[in-house]
C-alpha cells in the first residue's frame, strides 16, 4: 500500500489544510464505520417517515445534502490555491446555499399546510 509510510499524523504538504476537513491522513476504517452506521440509521429513520410527508421529506433531504457547502468552504478559503480553484469553490458555495435556503423554506411552507381537523377558519 502506498500510504504505508508509517505516519499517522504526518503534516501534509505546504498548502494550508483546514481543521476538520483538510485532507490530513484519511482515517479510512473510521470513515467506513461511520458510513455504514449512518446508512443504517438513515434507512431506519426514513422508514418511519409518514407517507403523507414524502414530498417535504425530499425537499428536506435536498437541504441536508447541501452539507456539501462544508467542502466548498474549505476549498474556497484555501490560501495558496490558484484562482480558478477558488472560483470553483465559490460556485459550489452558491449552488449549496441555494439548496439550503430553498430546501428548508419550501419544506416549512409545505409542512405548515398539513392540518389535522377541519378548522373553521382558526389556525392552530
Amino acid at each position: 500500500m502506498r500510504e504505508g509510510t508509517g505516519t499517522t499524523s504526518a503534516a501534509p504538504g505546504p498548502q494550508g489544510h483546514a481543521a476538520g476537513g483538510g485532507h490530513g491522513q484519511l482515517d479510512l476504517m473510521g470513515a467506513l464505520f461511520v458510513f455504514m452506521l449512518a446508512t443504517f440509521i438513515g434507512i431506519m429513520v426514513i422508514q418511519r417517515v409518514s407517507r403523507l410527508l414524502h414530498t417535504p421529506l425530499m425537499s428536506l433531504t435536498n437541504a441536508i445534502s447541501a452539507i456539501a457547502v462544508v467542502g466548498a468552504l474549505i476549498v474556497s478559503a484555501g490560501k495558496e490555491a490558484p484562482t480558478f480553484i477558488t472560483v470553483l469553490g465559490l460556485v459550489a458555495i452558491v449552488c449549496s446555499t441555494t439548496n439550503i435556503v430553498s430546501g428548508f423554506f419550501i419544506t416549512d411552507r409545505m409542512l405548515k399546510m398539513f392540518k389535522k381537523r377541519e378548522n373553521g377558519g382558526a389556525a392552530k
Partner: protein
Amino acid sequence: MSAETLVQLLYLVSTALFILSLRWMSDPETARKGVFSGVAAMLLAVAGTLAGVAATGGTHYWWILGAFVLGSAIGYPLALVPLTAVPQRTALSHAFGGLAAGLVGTAKYFLYYGQHNAEALAPFIVVALVAEILLGFLTFTGSLLAAGKLQEVTWIPQRPVTYPFQNLVNLLLFAVALGLGVALVLNPLAPWGPVAFGLIILLSLAFGVLLIIPIGGADMPTVISILNSYAGLSAVAMGFVLNNKLLITAGALDGSSGLILSIIMCKAMNRSFTNVLFGAFGQAQQKAAGGEEKVYKADTTESAAQVMEQANLVVIVPGYGMAVAQAQHKVRELYDLLKKRGITVKFAIHPVAGRMPGHMNVLLAEAEIPYTDLVEMDEINGDMPQADVALIIGANDVVNPAARTDKTSPIYGMPIIDADKAKTVYAIKRSKNPGFAGIDNELYFLDKTFMLFGDAKAVVGDLARKLAGEGGH
C-alpha cells in the same frame, strides 16, 4: 481546547441534529421541529467549518460572503414556486447538489495535482474523487433533464427517447469512464492526469443525459428519488476525500432517503430499478393500444351530483390531471359540501400518483383538506366495496383493473386503487385519449362507470355548484 477539537464538537452536535431532523418527520405534528433542527444543524456545520478554516489561516472571506448572498438570492424565490411545480424544483435542487459535489471534487484534484501531492492522492482518495465527480456530474445533467421534462419544456421530449443498442452504448461509456478512473488511481500524478480527469467529467455529463432521456414522464417519481440518492452519495464521496465524518453522515442520510423512496416507488409500480432505468417503458405501449372500439358512458354533472348526494361514503382518487388543472381548491369546495350533508369523504392516494412521491398529499393539504382524510392505497382498498361513489379526478393507470388481470398489459402487476369495487364510478377526464401509458383503461368501460369529460377544475367546480344548488331533495 484546540480549534480542531472545537470543530469536531460542533460537527458532532450538527450530525445529531440532522438525524433528529429526519426523525421528527415521522408525524405531521412534529415535522416542523425537523426543519428547525435541520437549520440549526446546518448553521453549526457552517460555523464549525469557518472556525476551522480561520484557525488554520483562511482567506477570501468577502467572496465567500458574496457567494452566500447570491445563493440565498437564488434559493429564496425557488422556495416560493406553486406547489404543482415542486417536482421540477426538486429536480433542479438535485442538479445544484450534484454540481456542487462535482466542482469540489474537481477543485480538490487539481489542487493536489498542482502541488504534486502524492500523499494526498492516495489510492482510496482518488477512488473517492472519481466517484464524487462521476456521481456529481451525472446527477447534474440528469437532474436538469428531469426538471426540463417535468416542466414540459418544449424542446425536451416527454415520451421516452430510445435508439438501438442504447443500453450497450451507455455501458460502454461507463466502462471507459471506469477505465480512466482506474488509470488515475494507479497514477494520479501522471502528466495525462488532468486530461483523464477532464474526460471523466465529460463522460459523466453525457452519461447523466443518456441515462434520463429514455425515461418517460410517468416514471419521474422513481427517477427523482434515485437522483436524490445520488446527490447524497456524491456528498458521501466528498466526505471520504476530505476525511469529514459530518459530510459522510449527512450524505448517507440523504442517500438512504432517496434509496428508500425509490424502492417504495418501484414496488408501487411493480417494476424493478433496472426496469425503470433501462426498460424504456414507453416502447411496450405501441402494441397494447388499439383493438376493438369500446363504448364509454358519459354523464352530466347534474346527475352525478344527485347520485353523490345520496351516498354515505365517497372516495375521491386524485391524479396528475388534478395537479395540472390546479383543481385542488375546487375539490375542497366539493369536499366541504359533501361533508356538510354528513357524507364521509376520503381521498385514496396511490404512491405514484402525481410526478413525485407524496405529491398529491401536499396539493390537497394546500387546499386545507385535513390530512386525516388522506388515506394510503393499502388502507383504503379495504373500504372500496363500501364506497357508494368513487370519483376519479385526473388519475388513470392507478385505477386500471387491467393491472390485475391482463398479463400483456405494461402495467400488469402494479398495485392499484380498487376503484372498480365501488358501487358507482365517475371519472373526470379531459378527453378520450389514452393516458400516459397509452393503453385503454378498463375501468371506463364498466357498466357502473360514467365519464365526466372536461377540465378537472371546471368539472369539479360544476359538481360543487350543482350540489350547493340542490336544496332538500
